[in-house]
């Protein structure tokens, strides 16, 4: 029977992959995918600890994280569409009007 440390290690690995993706990628939509990856890594840790402690609060939190992630994707994609419409590009490097 694998212990919780295996799941937590996997969660840390997935979170690192997502973080590297956010920092390395340039397209805003791929950035969103990497953020989803990080949120799911956190969910895996939450569900693992819920299983370890035998109560359901962690699972309820994972549930809430999913709903907030869905709301975030909806608003974020609307903003990406607006930026694409005005600047003709989905690359985050082209959205540099606020840059000093």
């Amino acid at each position: 029977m694998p212990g919780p440390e295996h799941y937590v290690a996997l969660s840390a690995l997935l979170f690192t992959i997502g973080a590297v993706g956010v920092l390395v990628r340039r397209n805003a939509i791929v950035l969103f995918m990497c953020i989803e990856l990080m949120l799911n890594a956190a969910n895996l840790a939450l569900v693992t600890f819920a299983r370890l402690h035998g109560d359901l609060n962690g699972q309820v939190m994972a549930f809430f994280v999913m709903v907030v992630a869905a709301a975030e994707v909806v608003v974020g994609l609307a903003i990406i569409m607006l930026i694409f419409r005005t600047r003709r590009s989905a690359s985050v490097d082209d959205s540099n009007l606020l840059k000093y």
Partner: protein
Amino acid sequence: MTVADVLLLGLGAVAVGAGLCVVTTAHLVRAGLYLVVCLGALAGMFLVLTAELVAWVQVLIYVGAVVVLLLFAVMLTRAPIGASGDLDRPGWPGLLVGAGAGLGLAALFVDAYRWTSVSLPDGPDGPGSAGVLGGELFRSWVLPFEVLSVLLLAALVGAIIVSRPDVGASDRGAER
């Protein structure tokens, strides 16, 4: 090796491999499809951890809705069919910060477990079936649940307002 070992190994390998492909592939659409594989493997892992409802909600919301939305966004923006070469930026600062984050997590992990093995409790300790989770949700998490419904409504209205061209144009015209 027990069944749980094999499942963890297989699903974990699939999730990590698909996650690496999301980060490294040069095809936008393929990144979305690899994300489906990764999230599906994680849903299987939730099932192994007896979080039944969370696993099915994961399949419904993430695989069913979020990834479809992302693919629609890919189609509505530039929609490159083949590989696109400008997806990555010069990588070393990002890689450095990412490796730092990974090292921090690894140090925290080693500090927390110190190479000891903790066994999960056996038996139906945490059955995350819809009935049990719903009871928990409406017994002690009612207020956050209702606040979340308001948040979803606000996100819906906000997305419509942001993406409607006529609303933004008329406002900008009034400003001028």
